[in-house]
């Protein structure tokens, strides 16, 4: 099984082989000698790559892998061959409407756009207050506001539709 990983604009494909000499990871024309072992706590594994040691905490949620590694946190998309094939087909059908949803429970303290506005990627659309902090929610790409689905002062739960875009 091949795994296709993408992170921060970079992409790699990995294939793992358990051989008599141990586990080998191949990526392009590179090969790494691995020793991979789950710790009994169920969320940590020890990774030895050509003798270098890494203590990895991983949470796998479908194709999204969240890592804790070297004190940092990385979210990496990883698809296996089958998922990649399935997504390639589905991807061609996508496009059109997009939605801004509340990424956390909170109170809508400011709405910065109205229906019909043109917005650019990164532009703040709604400000949500949670845990004493004001959190601007921004457009993920350029587009046009179709509908504002929330009111100022409203308490919303995570996942509530706030703004429809196209």
């Amino acid at each position, binding site marked *: 099984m091949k*795994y296709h990983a993408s992170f*921060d604009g*970079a*992409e790699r494909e990995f294939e793992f082989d358990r051989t008599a000499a141990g586990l080998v990871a191949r990526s392009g024309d590179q090969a790494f000698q691995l020793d*991979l072992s789950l710790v009994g706590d169920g*969320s940590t594994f020890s990774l030895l790559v050509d003798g270098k040691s890494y203590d*990895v*905490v991983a949470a796998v949620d479908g194709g999204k892998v969240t890592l804790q590694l070297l004190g*940092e946190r990385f979210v990496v998309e990883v698809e*296996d061959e089958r998922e990649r094939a399935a997504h390639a087909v589905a991807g061609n059908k996508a496009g059109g409407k997009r939605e801004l949803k509340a990424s956390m429970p909170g109170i809508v303290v400011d709405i910065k756009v109205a229906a019909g506005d043109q917005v650019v990627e990164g532009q703040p659309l709604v400000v949500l207050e949670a845990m004493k902090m004001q959190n601007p929610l921004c457009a993920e790409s350029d587009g046009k506001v179709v509908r504002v689905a929330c009111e100022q002062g409203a308490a919303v739960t995570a996942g509530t539709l706030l703004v429809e875009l196209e």
Partner: protein
Amino acid sequence: MPLFRRLLVANRGEIALRVIRTAQELGIETVAIYSEPDRHALHVRRADYAVALGGEAARDSYLDADKVLAAAESLECDALHPGYGFLSENAGFARACAERGIAFVGPPAEAIKSMGDKVEARRIAAEAGVPLVPGLQEDIDAQRLAAAAAEIGYPVMLKAAAGGGGKGIRIVNDEAGLLPALELAQAEARSSFGDDRVYLEKFVTRPRHVEIQLMADQHGGVVYYGERECSVQRRHQKLVEESPCVALTPELRARMGEAACDLARAVDYVGAGTVEFLYSEGEFYFLEMNTRLQVEHPITEVRFDVDLVEEQLRVAAGEHVRPPQTPRGHAIEVRVNAEDPATFFPSLGEVTRLSNPGGAGVRLDSALHVGLEVTPHYDSMLAKLIVHAADRDHAIARCERALREFRIVGVATSMPVALHTLRSEEFRCGDYDTGILERIDRKTPVERHDLIMMAAAAARFLANERAGTAAGFEGKDRRQEPPRWAMLGRVERVGRMPR
């Protein structure tokens, strides 16, 4: 004889636990209070007694003075520690405690009130001879403004009196720009706030946030325990603090410390207090006084070998302050907040795994436990990591090491941001200011990409192996454990064969 018989700890989270620990070590019984979501919280489980307040939001529980006082009275507490936040700087609450014969472990109500009013605080500070940011607050006209600006020296700032949060501020670099800027600032202030009053203040370049920790007793004794540097901030939220501040000379430190003590004496202060200063280019200016224990107090404790909560309790019981010991080494604190380190959004969820840092020079003040639900009701701070070492370089290295060891699974935390700060050239060289966090490069270096993606692919590979019945299966499948283990934790196996 303990200092008090029974102490109500009017707080939650790490600071409640912090106070409970010292109280128990001093033989004082402790009473926890808790809101509904906090039924399982560590401060409830570790206290000797616990009283339910009901309610979820802070205003229905920890901020409800009547409920808190009723709890203290029902358990016949003779003292109350407010921690920080919540009711800690509420003068009326301090007075209500005193009226009920409960020793409030904090300053007298009058001192809280004076320092809580920012205008009053500035006035008292000025009278006490504490330096303020030079400026002209009243009777602004073009001539007086020009004279004042010339005296202060450019650049200067024009600020809307009714403003706040950075709005209505104009920076002026020379005299030619002054009058045009005044007109614009007044117009802006009028349209923004409906109030065209503006004032002049020196533009403090590259300011550092430096604060003095002091302790005062009921007999007029005041001591201070050096300073803390708190310039690593995001939206006025401190993230990394250190002590000492590398910018201070012993002479400056002494002047700041004396100024802080003068201010405390001016308001008949009692207990632990912190005087915050802006520091820039050899000068310091009074910002405000916090009339309570500060979140970052442990970096002072580890350097001075002092337990500030113990000292608070001692002076609350009428004892004299004790002279601080000579400080040793360098200390750093990292606040661990439940937030996505990339977006800074709050991260909610349940803590499912926890692996604490340890070893020499590492202290963890935390109320984290497996099973903790991080909810939006309260502050997002989960823990404080404090390190202490012989010098600043070693403290930085130790802090990095401890951050790598500290693993919290279930919620994202701000720890990676702290790590980037510690690794930045600006922090390492020590010449930084309150703008440091915005300048730090937090991008992942390209040479790490291979490792990161391989580790992620390996995680999915392992998960797939684990899910299937493939050969080469590693680790143990918890789902196949005998159900009796699942009852209430695993049985301790004394002398059985390890599986």
